[in-house]
């Protein structure tokens, strides 16, 4: 579904050029859930924007559904770290925004999309809030609206840029579990950026670990824990612990290749040069 071949990205910074990404080769299969994990500044958000067509790669090729990416596609949706709702629009009309922008190309009527929007809002537990304005909702509710908006056109691919990282821990867990449920119902391909190992283990079929400056693929870890997965008490604690430990080790590793202690959490800045 998504194919990256030798993708690299160089930005012109104030002090010369900065290599954000280097030699990224990744193939995401249809219906797969892949998370990109790494420290801040490892270029994971940049990678997502390359797939979204928001940014052209400096080198290499990006393909979605067999076609080279030249710009944003209507079958690919993007979800941001912040809800990014238009404050003057009601919940329902925020969800309907992509349909409205894309008028003329809709394969269904607007009324059908409106029904779909209501359905999605119900799916995330927001029935009855259709006419509210965003500022009347909590952060978690706003991000749910944002999730509905990115699902309204039944995208083939969903790109999610740390969508739950601005929420409190409980809401984050709740939304992750909800996303997993939605994922099991729809067959959307998802690429999900995060810096939370917990989130990655809960959600992903495969985890791509990126190293910082320049962003390179360090390793791809398969996660074979059966779904539905949940946090806390569950039947697969050993597997979860093993994979989490491994991811910790990979992320803690210094750029020289010196391994970190598995399971040890180091403050982010300590490791950076």
């Amino acid at each position: 579904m998504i194919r990256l071949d030798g993708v690299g990205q160089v930005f012109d910074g104030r002090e010369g050029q900065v290599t954000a990404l280097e030699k990224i080769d990744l193939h995401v299969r249809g219906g797969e859930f892949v998370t990109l994990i790494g420290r801040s500044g490892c270029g994971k958000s940049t990678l997502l924007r390359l797939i979204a067509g928001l940014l052209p790669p400096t080198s290499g090729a990006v393909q979605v559904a067999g076609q080279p990416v030249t710009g944003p596609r209507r079958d690919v949706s993007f979800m941001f770290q912040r809800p990014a709702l238009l404050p003057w629009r009601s919940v329902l009309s925020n969800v309907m925004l992509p349909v409205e922008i894309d008028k003329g190309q809709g394969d269904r009527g607007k009324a059908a999309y409106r029904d779909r929007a209501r359905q999605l809002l119900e799916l995330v537990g927001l029935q009855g809030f259709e006419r509210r304005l965003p500022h009347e909702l909590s952060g978690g509710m706003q991000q749910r609206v944002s999730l509905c908006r990115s699902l309204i056109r039944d995208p083939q691919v969903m790109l999610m840029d740390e969508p739950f990282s601005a929420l409190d821990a409980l809401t984050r867990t709740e939304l992750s579990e909800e996303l997993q449920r939605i994922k099991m119902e729809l067959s959307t391909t998802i690429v999900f950026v995060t810096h939370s190992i917990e989130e990655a283990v809960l959600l992903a079929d495969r985890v791509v670990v990126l190293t910082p400056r320049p962003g390179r693929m360090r390793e791809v870890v398969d996660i074979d824990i059966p779904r539905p997965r949940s946090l806390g008490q569950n039947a697969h604690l050993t597997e979860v612990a093993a994979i989490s430990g491994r991811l910790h080790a990979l992320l803690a590793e210094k750029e020289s290749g010196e391994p970190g202690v598995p399971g040890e959490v180091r403050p982010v800045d300590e490791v950076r040069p």
Partner: protein
Amino acid sequence: MTTRRRMPKRTWLTDSPVAAVVLPIIGLAAAIGLWWGATVAFSIQPYLLPSPWDVVVKFFEQPGYLLQETGTSLLETIEGFLLAIVIGVPIALVIVRSVILERLAYPLLLMVNSIPKVAIAPLLVIWMGFGQWPKVVMVLLMCFFPIVISTAQGMKSTPTELVELMRSLNASRAQEFFKLRLRYAMPQIFTGFKVAISLAVIGSVISEFVGATKGLGYVIQQSGASADTTLAFAAITLLSVMSIVLFYALVLLEHWLLPWAQEKR
């Protein structure tokens, strides 16, 4: 319990809508009371400072005349203000689209704004005669700057994630402009309008000091010539009322048009 002391106490006086109307009236009444008390206590001559009652009596001696002059000033104010919107907003929209244009235009705008408006009032009369135009143009000059600046600022305040959202939805430039940037700028544009409307009233008075035969500014100028301080006070009071009414009309319009913006203040 230091936090409790620092926080303003919330009672019905701070929260109820009735108090929101009653309190300003009490404040105004107290100020008028003080003024009245001073004129009585120090037996000040009316040609120096008339009492509030003298001013009210003066108004009712010739209410038709004074209201007609108020109407003249009001019309000039509104015409100039609307003209400033019609000219200022598009100019701001063009300016923010190009850094080059912005750099070219800003010093010019600043220069125009820094000219003392009283100084060009006689020039406007020379250029445009004794009719309504020099007045409308004066109001326009007064309003223009705050409207342009706040519109330009508003257009630049669109959060990047919303711009990126529109891009990711493949929105056209027109859609991005109308559905996002302009809508997002509206509260700031309204702030400019509210600053401008008070300046508009001042502009109409200044222009009526020079080469006018009508309007409240003319009334004030004439009363000075005949030492009729009470008449001047009546005219000034009408100007204040006009200014307050226009300002709150804009506030109401904003509440009605932009209900979503209240939470952000």
